[in-house]
């Protein structure tokens, strides 16, 4: 497969001016010199993105991912290195960039389309499709400044996707508009993928990357950390974000006088095979090594699970007698066993703590020390796999000629309700 985007040894230096002299007077006073600190936003970045790939870029704020995207788009010029892009390219760095508030939606479609590289004839051909996509048929001749923010963004997205580029660069703009519009955008992205176009997405949302990308790259401090399949990359990203990953678990001692230290933590699923992820409903075992310099008989082990948006999914009950334990001198191993994990797709991080039952003291607390991945082979979506039973029963009451009007709230539509009405 041909390479769509070839990034070769790209470096980009920014100058962080200690004091910025943009006026002539200041420049003269300082002899034309401006003290600055060089800052490498990108350093020796090499990536090959194949045609037809949907490529995600992950990284913390300021890691250089947006700078890289701007370099690929040609908005910024790299300090050294070269980027080769095969085919036409459109960048969605901001929706509706270049809209003139004083012009009508119609004029802005032409302006924005031209900025994205379409000829006048091209835009005329696609004009109706763009308006229909943006759902703005009634407002297209109104000035854009009177548009709601939703309308504005929809128009921006509609123009950008209707450019139909060979290579599309997207910077965290997929989440626009209401749910129906988002679905339409995703459908459009899917169609692009099917047609073999190349898409590069920069996002913080690991879910977006996981669901849409075929490959992902993690960046930090302007360097490439890893380029891998999305799952692996997300793991590396979270490890980077949470400061775990290659962390030596023995590095920090216990909080309470170093009596305790939680050592290596492991997560294992109860499923068969060597797969690295967990299927929903499988068991999960978390084990943690524990070093102890004293015998404690009133310790409580706690565990908490967070999702990739750092929202708490579960935290154990400290009053649960099963969590209370005696820990002898020298320590041992704590085992947390979940017989069934009813979670759906996602990466979840695990935090583990050992605290005293009688005092408020925390012996040791390891925040988000490890993580596990749940991958759902089915098509259910969401966070939790709720037990579900769907059944169908014939509505026998219809023979009596009575028509059930509306089921009361909480009632199950069907025979039992109808029987109530009859009686």
């Amino acid at each position, binding site marked *: 497969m041909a390479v769509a985007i070839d990034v070769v040894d790209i470096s980009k230096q920014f100058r962080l001016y200690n004091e910025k002299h*943009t*006026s*002539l007077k200041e420049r003269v006073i300082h002899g034309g010199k401006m003290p600055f600190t060089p800052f490498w936003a990108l350093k020796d970045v090499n990536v090959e993105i194949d045609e*037809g*790939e*949907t490529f995600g870029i992950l990284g913390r704020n300021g890691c250089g991912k947006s700078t890289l995207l701007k*370099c690929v788009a*040609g*908005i*910024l*010029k*790299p*300090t*050294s*290195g*070269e*980027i*080769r*892009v*095969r*085919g*036409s390219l459109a*960048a969605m760095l*901001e929706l509706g*960039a*270049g809209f*003139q508030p*004083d*012009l009508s939606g119609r*004029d802005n479609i032409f302006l924005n389309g*031209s*900025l*994205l590289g379409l000829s*006048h004839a091209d835009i005329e051909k696609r004009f109706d499709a763009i308006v229909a996509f943006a759902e703005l048929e009634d407002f297209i001749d109104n000035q854009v400044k009177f548009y709601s923010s939703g309308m504005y963004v929809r128009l921006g997205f509609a123009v950008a996707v209707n450019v139909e580029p*060979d290579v599309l660069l997207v910077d965290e703009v997929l989440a626009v508009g209401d749910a129906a519009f988002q679905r339409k955008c995703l459908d459009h992205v*899917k169609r692009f*993928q*099917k*047609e*073999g176009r190349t898409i590069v997405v920069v996002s913080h949302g690991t879910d977006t990357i996981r*669901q*849409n*990308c*075929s490959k992902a790259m993690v960046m930090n401090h302007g360097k490439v950390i890893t380029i891998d*399949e*999305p*799952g*692996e990359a997300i*793991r590396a990203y979270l490890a980077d974000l949470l400061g775990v990953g290659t962390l030596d678990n023995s590095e920090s001692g216990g909080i309470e006088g170093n009596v305790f230290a939680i050592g290596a*933590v492991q997560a294992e*699923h109860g499923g068969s095979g060597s797969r*690295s*992820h967990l299927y929903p409903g499988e068991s999960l075992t978390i084990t943690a090594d524990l070093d102890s310099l004293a015998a404690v008989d009133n310790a409580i082990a706690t565990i908490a699970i967070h999702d990739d948006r750092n929202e708490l999914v579960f935290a154990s009950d400290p009053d649960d007698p099963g969590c209370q334990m005696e820990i002898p001198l020298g320590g041992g191993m704590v085992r947390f066993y979940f017989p069934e994990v009813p979670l759906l797709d996602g990466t979840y991080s695990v935090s583990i703590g050992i605290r005293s039952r009688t005092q408020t003291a925390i012996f040791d607390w390891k925040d988000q020390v*490890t*993580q*596990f*991945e749940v*991958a*759902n*082979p089915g098509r259910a979506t969401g966070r939790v796999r709720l037990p579900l039973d769907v059944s169908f029963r014939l509505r026998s009451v219809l023979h009596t000629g009575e028509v059930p009007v509306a089921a009361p709230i909480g009632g199950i539509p069907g025979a039992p309700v109808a029987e109530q009405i009859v009686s």
Partner: protein
Amino acid sequence: MSLSVDRPSAPGSDPVATIGGTTRFVPGQRHHQVTVVNGKVQLGQRIVDLWRNRDLLFLLIRTQLKVKYKDSVLGYVWSMLNPTLVLAIYYVVFKVISRNNQPYFAIWLFCGLLVWNLFNNSAMSATGVVVGNSHIVKKVAFPRELLALSTVGVSLVLFAIQVGVLILALLIFGIVPAWSYLPLLPLALVALIVFTSALSIFLSAVNVYLRDTQHLTEVLLMAWFWGTPIVYAFGLISTELAKPRWHSLVWIKYVYLSNPVTPIAMAFQRAIYGKTQYTYHGAVTHILPVWGVGTFSLLLTVDLAVSVGLFLGALVVFGRLEGNFAEEL
């Protein structure tokens, strides 16, 4: 240390799995075109890009014109009112108050102002155009020189409107232009456009880094205006310099002529105003040199050649500075 991530390859659950297996879109011609982004300034590529994006240029011009007169009742009439008012003021000051004897002085003034307005309007608005459109420059990749060129385009539209007013005035006053000199005007206009574009592109880029440029430009353009024979005649200068007491200062004349706007303004005056001298109470006043069409052509050709050189230079400077626009704005 932990479970690593791996997608199950269950059919239908993975959107990626369908790539390559299904129909690929038909590669267009542009599909095989490779764009290279690096730190170098490729002059040829820049010019090609400018040409490719000419649709955008026209759209930018249209946008600026629309925005300029949006919500105004008189609209385009303003673009005529402004120069007409300037013309009226100069006319009153020089003809009525300071008793200038030149016949149809207003027409003479108009010929020069026409040229100057095109140059001045472009340079002034181009200086702030990249900074003013930072929201586009930071987010969209396109040849940014177009922004500067669009200000020249807008001025050119206003120029056309003013030419209409001038033709009307010529008809009313029954002034006959010097027909043999009229063919010079397209050449003069092209030279003017190229020179103005060069300066506009240069100023728009420099102003991103040195915001004082805007104010400096204002002052320099004012000085430049009075250094160009528009309100007064070139003939007055050359007559004065021909006197023996200014013998050592003849070089001033050549410095004067090296101003690229001067030959262009003089060509307009020569062709439209038509006279090189006038007689008042028996005293002859020379207002323009008695050059033939050939001399004017030569001067304008040199002017054009220099302007093309400056234009290319401006593109190179712009290309150098453009690389960090998104960062500086």
